[in-house]
């Protein structure tokens, strides 16, 4: 066995288990280096043991007792406060016998159920009505806005007004009038073209159809004339032939849509 300083320490501490101890002691008997080690360690250990610790003060126990008493009192105070709180809660409870409490709970549940059964439907209907009212109001507002915007001097605002009409579901005569007026009188070609597009949706109304036909004579812009020609073909409106003929007579030879109008006339006359 080799010398092992650590074993010396643990042997001196009496912490070697039986086998280890016997083995070490056998080694120690022969090994002078380990004997020297043990000697030194013992010397230090003995010295250590002799380090004197001054006696603690005699009043340590008295001080402890004082601390304990003070602590006990503080605990009792806390306990009392807690107990008072609990007993007060219990008193509150004693005013409400269980039967009565049960009765009132049943009543509350009953009330909620009955209320639920009776009024369950009405809130839904109510909300539907409200939504309908609200959307009709929004629609009204849109119509008013469209009308006022169509009078706006800015062409882009008028374009916006025309686009609003696409969102209005129940369009009224006032709006139709305004659109027709725009179609015939608006100084901007783009606005007139967009208005024409918007009016196509209402071409199933006889009045709109008539006004569109009448408008052919009013249009000076070849673009609008061309668009009207397209629409008339789509609607197969034979009554427009007369108007187109009239237009051809009045317009100059340099009109780029002249051939298109002629073609339209022949198509519609078939």
């Amino acid at each position, binding site marked *: 066995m080799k010398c092992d*300083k*650590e074993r010396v*320490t*643990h042997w001196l*501490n009496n*912490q070697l288990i039986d086998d280890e101890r016997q083995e070490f002691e056998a080694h120690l008997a022969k090994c002078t280096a380990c004997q020297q080690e043990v000697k*030194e*360690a013992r010397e*230090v*250990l003995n*010295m*250590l*043991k*002799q*380090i*004197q*610790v*001054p006696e*603690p*003060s005699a009043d*340590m*126990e008295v*001080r*402890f*007792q004082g*601390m*304990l008493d003070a*602590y*006990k009192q503080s*605990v009792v105070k806390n306990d009392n406060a807690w107990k008072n709180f609990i007993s007060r809660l219990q008193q509150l409870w004693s005013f409400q016998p269980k039967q009565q409490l049960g009765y009132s709970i049943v009543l509350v549940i009953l009330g909620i159920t009955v209320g639920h059964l009776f009024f369950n439907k009405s809130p839904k209907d109510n909300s539907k009505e409200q939504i309908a009212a609200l959307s009709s109001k929004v629609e009204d507002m849109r119509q008013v806005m469209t009308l006022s915007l169509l009078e706006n001097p800015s062409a882009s605002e008028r374009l916006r007004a025309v686009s609003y009409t696409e969102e209005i579901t129940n369009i009224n005569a006032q709006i139709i009038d305004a659109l027709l007026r725009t179609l015939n009188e608006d100084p901007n070609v783009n606005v007139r073209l967009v208005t024409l597009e918007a009016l196509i949706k209402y071409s199933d109304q006889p009045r709109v159809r008539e006004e569109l036909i009448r408008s052919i004579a009013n249009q000076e812009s070849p673009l609008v004339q061309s668009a009207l020609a397209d629409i008339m073909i789509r609607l197969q409106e034979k009554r427009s032939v007369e108007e187109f003929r009239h237009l051809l007579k009045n317009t100059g030879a340099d009109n780029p849509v002249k051939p298109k109008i002629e073609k339209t006339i022949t198509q519609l006359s078939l």
Partner: protein
Amino acid sequence: MSEPTDNELMLCVKAGNLDKMSLLFSRHHRSLYNFLYHMTHDKQASEDMVQNVFYRMLKYRNTYTGKGQFATWMFHLGRNILKDEFKKQKRTGNYEGLEEVSEKISGGILADEQLGKKQAQHKLYRAMEKLNEEEREILVLNKFQELKYHEIAQILNTNEGAVKVRIHRAFNQLKSIYLKMESYEV
């Protein structure tokens, strides 16, 4: 009827019988005081810390599980308080322990033989102070409190193997410091 064990007493305290703490105090305050004294070399501070440890035992009695030994728990709390104290000392930078020792050495006329012995002890005392806190602590628990390795392991929250290694290292360190001091003087 046999004497109640520490464990039984502490469980009584936990259940609300706070007076039983007195008995535990008289059984253990001295060993706790010794431990703290060896760690600090300061009598007054050690006494204060003993009171503090027992106060904490009362306050945190509900955390006592009764699984380990009562003494283990006590040293555990003692260590925590000691750590706080060392932190405080590092901040203020005062260490009264050494002064107290030199006073004791110089105080009174000692016989030559007695003086030599005292000086040797004083050297060892200083050697102890040269150890770091961990080394000193494990040696105090081992040599002065004479606790078993597994008990020390419980107090230090570690395993027995680690305790074995650390005790050996700390004792060797102490020995070499002490022998070095010896050789300087000769």
